[in-house]
């Protein structure tokens, strides 16, 4: 993975999200108030990066809750799922507990949206992440990416197809 730093707020990619074939920019983000997660630590297995606008969407089966239910299907591919939004670690903590989420939520909180910008997945006008999905192969290359209209929960069919299409 490219060693671009999360502290670099300048977008390295403008006009859409990073496409398949690109190297997934590495990052280190808070996963709990006192723990961080570094993307490159997950090399060797597929990773699903799900950028989403905000915790606490007021609907049943919001995107993260849905992925939580589908987690066993993702794990069949040995894939690791990471949710990313600009909410802080304490907010994520409360949200994850409330929805019984069994996967990490990363806080792209300070500098705000820095990682999302690197993936071309930041909505500067709204100050939140796009609803953007990335499936990374075990070498940290983007195998598939998709940006959904922000009001439309993209579901998981694209992710599962991309995982299935990864070289074995």
């Amino acid at each position, binding site marked *: 993975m490219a060693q671009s730093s999360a502290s670099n707020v300048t977008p390295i990619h403008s006009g859409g999200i990073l496409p398949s074939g690109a190297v997934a920019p590495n990052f280190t983000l808070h996963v709990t108030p006192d723990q961080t997660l570094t993307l490159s630590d997950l090399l060797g297995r597929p990773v699903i990066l799900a950028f989403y606008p905000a915790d606490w969407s007021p*609907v*049943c089966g919001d995107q993260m809750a*849905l992925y939580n*239910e589908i987690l066993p299907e993702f794990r069949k591919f040995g894939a690791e799922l990471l949710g990313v939004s600009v909410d802080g670690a304490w907010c994520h903590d409360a949200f994850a507990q409330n*929805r019984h989420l069994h996967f990490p939520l990363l806080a792209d909180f300070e500098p705000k949206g820095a990682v999302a910008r690197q993936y071309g997945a930041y909505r500067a006008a709204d100050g939140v992440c796009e609803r953007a999905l990335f499936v990374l192969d075990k070498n940290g290359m983007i195998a598939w990416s998709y940006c959904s209209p922000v009001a439309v929960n993209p579901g998981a*069919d*694209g992710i599962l197809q991309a995982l299935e299409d990864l070289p074995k």
Partner: protein
Amino acid sequence: MATLKVPIAVEDHVQGPETADVTLVEYGDYECPYCGQAYLIVQQVQKHFGKRLRLVFRNFPLSEMHPAAEAAAEVAEFAGVQGKFWEMHDKLYENQERLGEVLYLELAEKLKLSTTALHQALEQRTFEARVRADFKGGVRSGVNGTPTFFINGHRHDGSFDFETLISAIHQAMGTAKSV
């Protein structure tokens, strides 16, 4: 746009004729309050279109969020093999706030189904595989929450209020005629 990947088959729970202009597929969860609202709206929609509409219901229990949803789905499937799926489906939605074994046995009795057999089916998870199959097919089709509707195989991303649903169905009927 997300499309239905699992075609309507004999195992499906269907209301309305095969020759209907439009097929509305609902992926639902018995504990989801939005599905509870949708239950009443779908009935109005069915009344509005009559035989021009075919309805299919498939299970999509969000078990992490709704701990009673899976068992409720299994109860409906249990009734289904005895030809009483829709009666049970309706009663579960009408008693959504009371989901649990007491209610299930009470409903089974009302529908003249064996309470012993139901208890056993729940204990042995007889219908778990069926419910999971619906769920997995839904995931593959892009179900993104509950309820999710497909109109003639295309996911309906708009709201599910009566007006929006009937206008989307009318639109599908228009398309169906011109193709």
